[in-house]
């Protein structure tokens, strides 16, 4: 089953590779991994999307907790949570396609953030599913490049991951 795991870790050189190394060494899946510093510059927050049986997910949580640099771990999938991903898509925008792409972008509540005489860059935020849907909705042949951040997640209401 798909799980989205959030963790706080020391913002130190090598901390990211300890997490990435753990996943490869033990044969766990990583669908996506996002990391950036938090409002406390000594801490980074990472969101990992992974999948596995209940036993594997339990081990992933325990093994993450065991890393010395990891200060807190929360399996967001165990409760109410939100997740968002950012995607930038560069598309070929010529003739009739320009209007069509503008329309689709509006429907999906995206924004065109760069315009040239032949291309658009479209910015879209949402769940991974929504981003997938957008890519399916537009003419596949028009896509020149896509870049996705991978999911970031946060617990709803009182579910707070903080030291």
């Amino acid at each position: 089953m798909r799980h989205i795991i959030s963790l706080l870790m020391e913002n130190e050189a090598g901390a990211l590779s300890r997490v990435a190394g753990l996943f490869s060494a033990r044969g766990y899946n990583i669908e996506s991994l996002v990391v950036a510093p938090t409002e406390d510059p000594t801490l980074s927050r990472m969101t990992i999307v992974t999948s596995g049986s209940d036993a594997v997910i339990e081990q992933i949580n325990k093994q993450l907790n065991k890393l010395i640099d990891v200060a807190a771990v929360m399996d967001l999938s165990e409760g109410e949570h939100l997740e968002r991903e950012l995607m930038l898509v560069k598309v070929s925008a010529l003739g009739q396609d320009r209007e069509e792409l503008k329309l689709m972008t509006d429907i999906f509540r995206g924004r065109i953030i760069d315009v040239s005489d032949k291309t658009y860059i479209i910015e879209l935020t949402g769940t991974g599913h929504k981003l997938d849907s957008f890519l399916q909705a537009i003419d596949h042949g028009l896509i020149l490049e896509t870049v996705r951040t991978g999911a970031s997640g946060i617990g709803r209401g009182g579910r707070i991951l903080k030291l």
Partner: protein
Amino acid sequence: MELTGAEIAIRCLQEEGVEYIFGYPGGAVLHIYDALFEQDKVKHILVRHEQAAVHAADGYARSSEKVGVALVTSGPGLTNAVTGIATAYMDSIPLVIISGQVPTYAIGEDAFQEVDAVGITRPCVKHNYLVKDVKDIATTIKKAFYLAKSGRPGPVLVDIPKDISNNKTEFDYPSSVSIRSYNPVGKGEIEQVKRAAKLLLEAKRPMVYSGGGVVLSGAASQLTELVRMLGFPCTNTLMGLGGYPATDKQFLGMPGMHGTYEACMAMQHCDVLIAIGARFDDRVVGNVEHFAQVPRKIIHIDIDPSSIAKRVKVDVPVVGDLKLVLEQLLVEFRNIKRKPNAKDLAAWWKQIDEWRVKGGGLRYKNSTEIIKPQFVIEKLYEITGGDAFVTSDVGQHQMWAAQYYKFNKPRRWINSGGLGTMGFGLPAAMGVQLINPGATVACVTGEGSIQMNIQELSTCKQFHLPIKLLSLNNRYLGMVRQWQEFFHGNRYSESYMDALPDFVKLAESYGHIGIRIDKPSDVEPAIKEAFSRKDDLVFMDFQTDPTENVFPMVPGGKGLSEVILSEDL
């Protein structure tokens, strides 16, 4: 007064009460060796290969309750040390390894003897550090010692670039240190302890399965008290030998691939299994699906939550330091004032005794013509009164030593259980001998393993280490040969050891005593002679039966009750 980083590093070791360190100098650690030269509190043992430095520090740690320390240079010094570090990591041994690194300004430029030490060791250390500022050296080393010995112990690497070891700052060693993201556990949750106690009292066929954690936690006396109080059968894993006295009638021997029949059967058929500092290793439970076919409740006590429910389902997990948790359990049983059902327990012991008879105990067919390896270990046990420190290498000789030497005390059996590192025995024995001066230290080895670190005979000469080596020389990589006989149609691919040296002359050329033993009747006199030489290292080269196999055996992938007993008995 300002000190150099190198001086600070050595002062830290002094503050930690380190008596001996094991190492090998080189360019990137020259400042540290200079600082070592200027003092005499921390004594340095010059090994002949960095792998041996780490194994020696490891033996030092296993046989005491101290943290072992090794010092190696950058590049090849560090990569040579990696096998030693991985060995310690798999067996949770507290070590601090200090490695030199190229100067900070050269890192990343493929400098001479540069290697990414933190990157290479990351998967086989508890934690590691690259020190980038001389001001951080003292705190980093303090953290390294704290991490190495607290919680589930393990090796910690501190990589110090050459310029950092030469820069100066004030020395201030912190008296304590805390790491916000690291909080090792102490006692177990009392509710879980109560559930465990209740389940144990309800058991009809209980079994105590204890491992290396008992030895590491210093919980052998608590384990012994608990097992005797309850009257339950007990087994110790390869890493846990000595955790419960091997000569006690409640001891069933070692379980697993080369365990006793009764230990394997009791593990398989018990209705409540309490695992104490053991991790259901593949060499212990064999095929986990087969193991799970018999319904049983499992209580698992361990300091590391990730060891619990890793390979088998657990009904009552208890996370905590074993010594404290076992004390909690003892208190609980004293409060309950109930005993296990005597009738059920008697029936269970009757069953176990039947298995003991059926298995026939550990046995082999002795010979007057050719030396049987088991016979050598039996004589070693008798002559040393069961009280020696015994290190071993890896292979058949390791299994025979584990089976036939009855360890009644913890920290006496020193072997590479998890990683299975050949070449471990001799350097480990050096560390054991140094921290236990005057003690009897035997290294049980084979002609294959000993050649993986034989250069340490030179170190033993330099530092007067009177280790007794017993090499069970069968001219084969015996365990490989055994598997080839059983599972590869007798095709002995590359397992025959041709062109062996004359080990007697070899020992003599290093300045030691060598004895070659060919006949069974010479075994006892030779061991007696060797152990009477208190101040000498003696290398005993026993010419043993090349066809002897280790039994009982649970073949790889099979279940515990599919154990093969010796066929020729």
